[in-house]
């Protein structure tokens, strides 16, 4: 018979479940940022021309440069958002963290000049006993909408706290 595991869930975490906690806007996406992302993820090979050659990109179904689907439009802010290290971080003092997984659903592509509106929330969690002991798997959802109101991306990040 299993013994009841110690719950890691705090009242602070419970209060955040399902609540949209963060809304912010990106800087306009630059062609340079797209090119540098593509170079980094293909290093040391040249990335596909779609991400850096406007003339080539005009001949594609996109009609111009787009960003790789997994591109990050929220980098290098002057003022750091504490939630960047996890919406749950300050609600779970003393727990260690590991990346558990990432799941993206994609809508419209990101293009140079686009401004992305992001909102994020803790969608859900479950606690299981693992080799790390009592372990929380926290699923945070992030939605990206462009300036035309189109869904760009819905991301579910699983972070592991133990």
């Amino acid at each position, binding site marked *: 018979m299993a013994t009841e595991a110690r719950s890691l869930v705090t009242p602070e975490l419970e209060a955040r479940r399902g609540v949209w906690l963060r809304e912010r806007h990106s800087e306009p996406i630059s062609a340079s940022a797209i090119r540098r992302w593509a170079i980094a*993820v293909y290093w040391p090979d040249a990335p596909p021309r779609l991400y850096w050659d406007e003339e080539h990109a005009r001949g594609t179904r996109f009609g111009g440069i787009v960003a790789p689907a997994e591109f990050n439009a929220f980098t290098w802010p002057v003022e750091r958002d504490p939630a960047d290290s996890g919406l749950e971080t300050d609600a779970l003092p003393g727990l260690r963290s590991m990346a558990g997984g990432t*799941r993206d659903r994609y809508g419209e592509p990101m293009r140079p000049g686009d401004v992305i509106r992001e909102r994020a929330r803790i969608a859900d969690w479950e606690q299981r006993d693992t080799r790390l002991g009592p372990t929380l798997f926290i699923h945070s959802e992030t939605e990206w909408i462009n300036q035309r109101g189109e869904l760009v991306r819905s991301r579910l990040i699983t972070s592991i706290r133990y």
Partner: protein
Amino acid sequence: MADEDRGEPLDSAPLYFEDVAVGDELPTWSRETGLVHWNRFAAVNDEFYDVHMDDGAARAAENPQGAFGMGMLRFSYLHNLLRAWAGEQVDVRELGCRYRAVNQKGDVLSCSGRVSGTRVEGGDHLVELELDVRNQLGESTTPAQAVVALPSRGGEARGAD
């Protein structure tokens, strides 16, 4: 067909839905990884966690081999696999992965994939895939599932209308 490891677009030979069958294996996309890759990715993803940059910090976090790679870079590598397979214009609808094992310095990561299903839904021609990133020991580090929409010889998928 472009060199499978170069990530070159396959515009000259678009992959059609009708060319794909359950059980098809994707050409492997591979990378030897280390700090030169991680530092570049840290710069573009603004991801400067010490465990990815500093051996001492990573050892203190119980990884005796020192600094280790970012999960999100492997997530990008899985996208690279799909782009190398179906071309730079591939319409990835969904990609989800679990980070099962650490990417150590010097690892040779091989991204692989297999078609697990096909379906037509609302006019979209969708292909389901099982993916993974394995290290040089053959260990699964990043099992994943993806859904992509491919053009059909009988009609175009979303984005082309």
